[in-house]
């Protein structure tokens, strides 16, 4: 169904300059080429700077004649991205899709969307209202969310370990517990307390 050769060429081409573009695509699982994972770097001079955002990409059977289905896995505080499920409101992923676009250009468009939100056409009404009425609060929240959810796991892990160790748990237990709950601090704390 999916144009496999095109998708493979797209992956090769996109990952060739991932350091420059800040955009990369990998197969979500090794077998299914219609389920991909994209990552974009948070654009500079935005509340998302320094974050790495993961996007779940599902290619419909009609790709590239139909737009890919994209959704933020990483939680983002953005007027055009649902803070609940990461759904994206972007025209090129809907009616303005063109077969001439690629996964890479779509991810780059998402990157551009992060740096220039369109609150007049919101996906998340709460965020959009905050963006329009109280931009400093919006920026602070977005920065916090970036810090909390979009920073790379390794650096975040050390902070979490540090935090839990300060609470009085042994470091090796904290590390193993954090690893078992996939880095979720609250779950790890619950587990440590319960166990």
């Amino acid at each position, binding site marked *: 169904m999916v*144009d496999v*050769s*095109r998708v493979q*060429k797209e992956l090769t081409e996109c990952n060739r300059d991932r350091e420059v573009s800040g955009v990369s695509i990998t197969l979500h699982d090794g077998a299914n080429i219609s389920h991909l994972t994209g990552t974009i770097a948070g654009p500079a001079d935005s509340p998302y700077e320094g974050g790495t955002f993961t996007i779940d990409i599902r290619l419909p059977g*009609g790709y*590239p*004649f139909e737009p890919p289905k994209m959704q933020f896995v990483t939680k983002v505080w953005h007027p055009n991205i649902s803070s609940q499920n990461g759904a994206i409101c972007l025209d090129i992923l809907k009616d*303005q899709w*063109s*077969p*001439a676009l690629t996964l890479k250009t779509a991810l780059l468009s998402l990157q551009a969307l992060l740096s220039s939100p369109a609150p007049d056409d919101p996906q998340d009404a709460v965020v959009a209202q905050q963006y329009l009425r109280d931009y400093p609060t919006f920026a602070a929240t977005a920065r916090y969310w970036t810090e909390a959810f979009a920073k790379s796991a390794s650096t975040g892990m050390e902070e979490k370990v540090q935090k839990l160790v300060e609470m009085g748990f042994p470091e090796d237990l904290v590390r193993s517990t954090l690893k078992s709950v996939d880095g979720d601090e609250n779950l790890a704390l619950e587990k440590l307390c319960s166990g």
Partner: protein
Amino acid sequence: MGHSDAASPASAAAARDAKKKRGNRTAAKLKQSKLETRREQWLSGQGKDGKETKVAASPTGAGSNAGSPILASPHPPLPRRRADTRSRGSDPEDREEAAAATLEVGGSDLDSPMHSPGSDKSQGGGCAQRKGFSGNGGGPSLSSGSSVWSSSRSVSDAEEDHTGCPEDESEVLDDWEAAADALYDDDSHCHQSSVPTTPPPAPTNAAPANAARPEPIRSKARAWAPDDIFRPQSLPSISKQASFPASIGNCWAGMGMSAAQQGILSLPLSCPICYEDLDPTDSSFLPCPCGFHLCLFCHNRILEADGRCPGCRKQYNTVPAAEGGGGPRATMIGREMANIAPVRLSRSCSMGPRY
């Protein structure tokens, strides 16, 4: 100057044609009666340069000649003869004409005794200019400089040497020629209003000294470097003139380059949709005026869906409608209105002849 250069050759050529006809007619008339004069005229043409300059420097012989007032005007025969020689050297027909025209002058010299150097000058200037153009058009020699003159001149000299003119006559003939030149000039001036007369042999007496001399220089003005010391001061701001066409040329070159590059870029080796290689048919297939290339398979696939060009997102089937002059509505009416599918089908079928 560039404008006049570009504009005049056509008119000059036309004038030359008309002049040729007329010149041939007059030549036929006058050849018989004035053969002797013509010979003398030609013989005077063989005079050495030194002699010519001598004549030019000393128009005293004028008094001894026809007594015409023109001779008092400082008109060195040298440029006139050079012009003649040029036309002789370049084109035998022109040579014949030149001789005939000169004869005509000889015949009609008494018609115009009231010949003023002023009018002479202006007239001669115009003639010289036109002569230059016709020379450019007709013969290879004129614009190529004095070396060609001298070669053609030596040819004509050689031709005329065996006519056996006595040396002592030549000086008098020079004066006679000067008078004839002046009178001919006036004569051609009279004729010019009605018929464009004989531009190539026309350059005469005093004016060519001013006009015909710089003429060859002017004809090769494009070869001048901006710092060339021989460049006439009258040429305006050659740096600008030179840089302007150069910049235009660069611009054109740049456009050409960019066009070529665009041509290369807009003709991708593979279809941008399916990434398959484009075959020649696909490469020549341009379904949208935006120039977006794609293979026929992908195009067909798009027509089955929303039918919009991937490059510009416009509907494919409104494109020929817009070209045909009617709006999208008109074509919808013009084509089968029943439903969209047949239209798309016919559209995809219409690609058949492109193969």
